[in-house]
């Protein structure tokens, strides 16, 4: 049996006390629960503290460019639609630099699981505002405080009809794991926005701040009601719901591409004679 230890990779370069440790652990536990061994998954990431995660668990990894994990993940899924793909990304990586890819990956409904370590700050580059930083937060680059409205990933994902939209929090380890398991089990694009304390740079949204606000959404909540889900997505402040906020059963990209429906591309051998047939078309 695979144990958590089998999943542990390099020694993390994160700050002691960082929320990322809880995420790492929950991912390991989720994969064990799913019965997936390290070689049976691919973890794609961009650049940032979050994006270092694949070095710290054992897995197949493509650690690419800042903001560009999703297209890489999409390419992987088209090449090989049998292997589960997870993206580990940050709020800057996914909602800032990579925002356009998020929009369109959701539209495609490619079967990729995106776990956003949302610490509401740029951690790796030492504390500039991210799209999810709350208005008014003062940083070196925003000496007058953040002006732009805080980005609401849940609301946007619902607006784009994302097939699985969840929020979780580092303050609730059990919940984190359960969201990961459900996201991976879900066929289609799954977004899990994870509230993650950055103890070094985000002095506003701390462990305590999240702890005091976060609550699990009601058991009987119906995530298929889009308008109610949207309404719920607006809840932020005194109380912040975690759980699956929205979901649907749209067809996934991989199932709608005829050439990979039967067999992954990677398993279809090259046959030059089939290409040679096209030559006669030029005559």
């Amino acid at each position, binding site marked *: 049996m695979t144990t958590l230890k089998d999943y542990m990779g390099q020694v993390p370069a994160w700050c002691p006390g960082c929320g990322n440790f809880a995420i790492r652990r929950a991912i390991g536990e989720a994969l064990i629960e799913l019965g997936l061994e390290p070689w049976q998954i691919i973890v794609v990431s961009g650049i940032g503290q979050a994006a*270092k995660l694949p070095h710290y668990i054992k897995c197949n990894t493509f650690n690419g*460019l800042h903001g560009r994990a999703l*297209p890489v993940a999409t*390419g992987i899924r088209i*090449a090989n639609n049998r*292997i589960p793909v997870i993206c580990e990304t940050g709020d800057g990586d996914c909602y800032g630099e990579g925002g*356009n890819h998020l929009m369109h990956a959701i539209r495609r409904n490619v079967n990729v699981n995106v776990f956003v370590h949302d610490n509401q700050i740029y951690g790796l580059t030492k504390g500039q505002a991210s799209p999810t930083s709350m208005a008014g937060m003062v940083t070196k680059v925003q000496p007058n405080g953040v002006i732009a409205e805080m980005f609401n990933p849940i609301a946007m994902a619902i607006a784009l009809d994302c097939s699985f939209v969840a929020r979780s929090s580092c303050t609730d380890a059990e919940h984190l794991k359960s969201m990961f398991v459900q996201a991976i089990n879900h066929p289609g694009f799954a977004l899990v926005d994870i509230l993650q304390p950055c103890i070094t740079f985000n002095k506003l949204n701390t462990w305590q701040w999240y702890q005091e606000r976060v609550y699990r959404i009601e058991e009987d909540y119906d995530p298929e009601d889009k308008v109610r889900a949207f309404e719920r997505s607006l809840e932020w402040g005194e109380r912040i719901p975690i759980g699956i906020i929205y979901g649907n059963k749209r067809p996934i990209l991989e199932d709608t591409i005829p050439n990979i429906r039967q067999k992954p591309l990677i398993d279809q051998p090259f046959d030059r004679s089939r290409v040679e047939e096209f030559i006669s078309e030029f005559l």
Partner: protein
Amino acid sequence: MIPFVGGDFFVNPGRLGIIEQVVAASAKKISIMDYTIKIGGEAGQGIQTIGDTLAKVFARSGYHVFSHQDYESRVRGGHNFYQIRFSEYPVMSSRSGVDILIALDKASIDLHRGQLNASGMIVYDSSSLKSKYEDAGFLEIPLAALAGQHGSPVMSNTAAIGGTLGMLGMQIGPLLDALEQNFRSKGADVVEKNQSVARAGYEYASINCPDCPFILAEPGKPLYLVRGEEAVGLGALAGGCRFYSAYPMTPSTGIMDYLAEKSKEYPVVVEQAEDEISAINMILGAAYAGVRSMTGTSGGGFSLMVEGLALAGMTETPAVICLGMRPGPATGFPTRTEQGELLFALFAGHGEFPRVVFAPGDPMQAIMLTARALDIANKYQIPAIILTDQHLMDSEWTFESMSLEGTHHTDYRLRGEELADVHDYRRYALTESGVSPFAVPGASENLVVEDSDEHDQDGHIVEDAETRNEMVRKRTIKKLQLIRNEIAPPLLYGSRDPNVILIGWGSTYGVIREVIDRLSPEENIAMMHFSQLSPFPDLEREGHLQLLNQAAIAICIENNATGQLAGLIRAETGFQLSARINKYDGRCFLLDDLLEEINDHLERLHGAGSRVVPGMR
């Protein structure tokens, strides 16, 4: 001076047989058929259908064809033209004179009548042009009326095609076949109507143009007719490409169209990305997962891909990018041609990493070099760039034979049982050659870790100087050495011991070659054509540099303003070319214009009165 073809210097694959024929004809100095048809009109008037059909009919009739297109960045209106040259001998450039001008609008007459050759004809329909021309050289065909009578008013272009064949005195059979093929999917009625309209046009012209002066050569064995964009597409498939992701951008969109069409019957997946950044990252993902992948774009899109190019370099992920150049900077002339991005392609991307840059000269080279780019990219796990332009992408060439021989497909991946036997796989294992085994993730218990940070052999982030040094040596220095050996020297064509050398790269291949044909053997002249530009070929190994040093004049001909190849040759060899011909108006070189310019140089070289009268035609 015996024109030199083949032999030691002739290194590129392809058109050997054809060259011999041209030279033979050139030597015999016989007058041979060489007609140019220009179809002019507004965007949306169906110029391309007429041009495509005529080119196909000529090729089917065994005539060699060269066509090029000149169009604006709009969907209706403006002024476009399609120019087809055909001959019984290979042609590979456009000329400035026109024999038949099919004028779909008045502007075409105003703009192009000056280009008419002595006995040239202008075909038009006064009912649509709202003008009548009584001068000699005009043939009015009531295209719309004939179409209305014999089929439907929308078929007047078919009447124009039929009329053109009638003027030329060609057989109509190949056209009827072509129409049948074009319209088969629309039902027998449409086919028949088009055919009768074609016949009506044909007969009208035959009867009403008694002094149409055209003398055709004997038809021959059908020839293959290939457009540059299709050639890149076919080469991609031949090189094993199974995934193509791109964002539409002229002049590369045709590659995506070709592959998307093929995806209906062949296991290749085409995905339109939301932007070019996504396109290149998608293909890197697919390549990492083990599937050969490619993208295509133009300069603006390539700019956006540059970060991904560096990612391919760092992660050692194979990637092929077709860069179809158009005149820049920025949006520039979106539908026109230029060779302004050679140095950009060579040095694009942050940090240092090896790449291959190929610039095919004709569609056959495009097939071969695209397939080869995929092979080399996968063999060495590096990015490769096919550097081409609107001119080649939109041009058609004919070939007597066509096959994929000469393309290679080796599966370089470590997979299946071979991989299962490995237990200590390291993605960036340090090897003698610098190339590490390339395993497929998920195919065995081995983990495949790729990383954009500096990394150790396992693919994990490092910070130390030693590993960095090792990885730079592996990734950049060693591989570069290996890849250098894969690069063929430039193609030489013409005199073995030339006094004058014309230098070019990429899509100017055809026009420069024809200049050589025309100036030999009166002038001791040769072409040096570069289609493999990075790593830069060794010009000393096979004596190219010596030829340059010995020649009285070496002229670098480029479709750009700054003479980028000339600069590159100097950077790589120290050799300073004696002259440059640069054209940067967004149009391709025309054979006759280039001949003039070369003649100016020859005159400066030999003294007044030394202009060479082109040997034939």
